[in-house]
């Protein structure tokens, strides 16, 4: 299995067709021992005694975009929130299994909770800049929240690069002192991306980041996501199948059968999921028969 991993780091379109066969050994079970990137092994989730997710195995490869797709209520957002320990914020929530960042268990390991969340950033469905802060303060808020001390020069540097990487620098460089809420919806979402980037995370989780935005803002965010994937691992939950096709390299299809917890039906290269899925249900979903 470890051979697959070395292959994947050099993956490109020509190689993947041979690689993906070995990644997947059966539907719903995709797992590679990966020292880098984010991996989930046998993850199940509960809210109280209700099991909402069962036996999820998934490797999110470093410096790639992995999309999580599936109908509403299939557990994909819940799964995303387990990846940076946001799941446990819900009272009564619990989980089982193992999630590793670069080979370290984020739940049982030595890394403190706040460090986990700093290394694995998150962008939410609706843009949520801090209203009491200016644009600049918003970008730098993560430094303040996680207690990172930087000097003035470094701070300005972080501010500029984060905004540039989020594709917002040009639009806001002359109005950094305005409140974050003064921006349009799409700009606010890119501000939230810049805010996440400022603490230099290794992974960025995105929970339907475009669902509250108009089509042109959506397009901008998608471009940003693609540019970012050169330097950061991205996991994105989306309802929009065109979006999954446009931005992601890998794709996992979640489904919850009636009165059953959600499971991964199929995980593979995005190209393959959308053209030649192996599972009947995947085919039905991607061709728009339900969900």
């Amino acid at each position, binding site marked *: 299995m470890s051979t697959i991993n070395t292959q994947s780091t050099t993956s490109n379109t020509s190689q993947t067709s041979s690689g993906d066969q070995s990644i997947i050994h059966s539907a719903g079970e995709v797992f590679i021992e990966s020292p880098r990137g984010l991996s989930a092994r046998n993850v199940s989730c509960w809210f109280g005694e209700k099991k909402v997710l069962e036996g999820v195995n998934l490797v999110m490869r470093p410096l790639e975009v992995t999309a999580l797709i599936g109908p509403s209520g299939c557990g994909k957002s819940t799964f995303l929130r387990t990846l940076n320990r946001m799941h446990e914020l819900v009272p009564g929530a619990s989980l089982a299994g193992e999630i590793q960042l670069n080979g370290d268990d984020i739940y049982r390991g030595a890394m403190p909770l706040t460090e986990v969340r*700093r290394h694995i950033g*998150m962008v*939410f469905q609706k843009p*949520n800049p*801090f*209203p*009491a802060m200016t644009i600049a303060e918003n970008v730098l808020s993560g430094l303040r*929240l*996680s207690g990172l001390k930087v000097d003035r020069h470094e701070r300005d540097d972080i501010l500029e690069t984060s905004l540039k990487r989020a594709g917002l620098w040009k639009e806001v460089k002359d109005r950094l002192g305005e409140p974050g809420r003064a921006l349009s919806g799409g700009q606010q979402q890119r501000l939230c991306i810049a805010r996440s980037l400022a603490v230099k995370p290794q992974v960025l989780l995105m929970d339907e980041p475009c669902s509250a935005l108009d089509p042109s803002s959506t397009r901008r965010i998608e471009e940003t996501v693609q540019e970012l994937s050169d330097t950061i691992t991205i996991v994105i939950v989306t309802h929009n199948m065109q979006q999954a096709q446009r931005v992601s390299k890998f794709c996992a299809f979640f489904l919850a059968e009636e009165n059953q917890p959600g499971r991964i039906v199929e995980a593979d290269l995005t190209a393959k999921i959308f053209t030649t899925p192996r599972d009947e249900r995947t085919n039905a979903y991607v061709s728009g028969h339900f969900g």
Partner: protein
Amino acid sequence: MIPTQEQTESVVPEERIEIAVRRDVPDRIYRGVATAAGFTTLALMALIGGFLLFRGASALRKAGFSFLTTEMWAPDQGGDFGIGAVLPYTIQISLVALFIAVPISIATALFITQYAPTRIRRPLTSLVDLLAAIPSLIYGLWGLFYLQPRLITVGKWMGDNLGWIPLFKASGPAPHSIGQFAASTFVAGVVVSLMVIPLCTSVMREVFAQAPMGEQEAALALGGTKWGVIRDVVLPFGRGGIIGGAMLGLGRALGETIAVTLIISPMFVRQFSIMEQGSNSIAALIALKFSESNANGISALMAAGLALFLLTLLVNAIASVIVGKGRSGAQTEI
């Protein structure tokens, strides 16, 4: 093509339907009665102000502006009278109460909304409400018999060791006798704080509970601790609620009567120290002097009551403006 079509259409004069509602008799009676009931509030407020002014007019005419500065109370004998000392004492007691109540209320409101396990939040809220339901008479009794003997040791310690601060000054040389610190502004303020805490807590709890979840999660996802979330999201969001809650508490404290009456020994000369025996408040003045006043005295008490009424109205008007100005939860639908 399409624009011209629209134009031609809009040339036609539109006849709007006048929406006329014909209500049946019971409906009209219902609306009339409800409206009348709604206006009793207005009528009552005007009557309260009017009657106090009318009854206090003779005293106010006699004393003039010196009513606000005179430090004595002898209207019955035709002597001078004024709230020159009583009003500052009233404010001092309220400020002591706020100084204690506001930090504790903020912390309690944060506890209920942010720290407490979900299932004990409702019972906790009920307990805070119960704290508000206990009559001020009972707080006063408890303060007089239980709390005062314990509080004056603190007062004495402050007077002995921190007496160089004017606020804690005790007359005479140290060591002071313990009795010198009874019936003080400080003791009254502590007891009043017990009545202010539930009010402040419930205002602040409501505001903190509306702090948008999305922003709180964003702060956590950036690696923030719970305190980080509170400092950067919850407290900035709740600033209006904190100030407004404190102002409402101030209004409550200014008007508190029975607990203060039971505890203080009335003084009509100003003193700055809050630890030293002797204090006063407008409400306590009215409660204590009422039964022993003649017509002149009653008129003077009415004038004092008017001053208290106007003061609490002012404080509450400011409070409602501040609370109303705060960012309402309705704007953020996260």
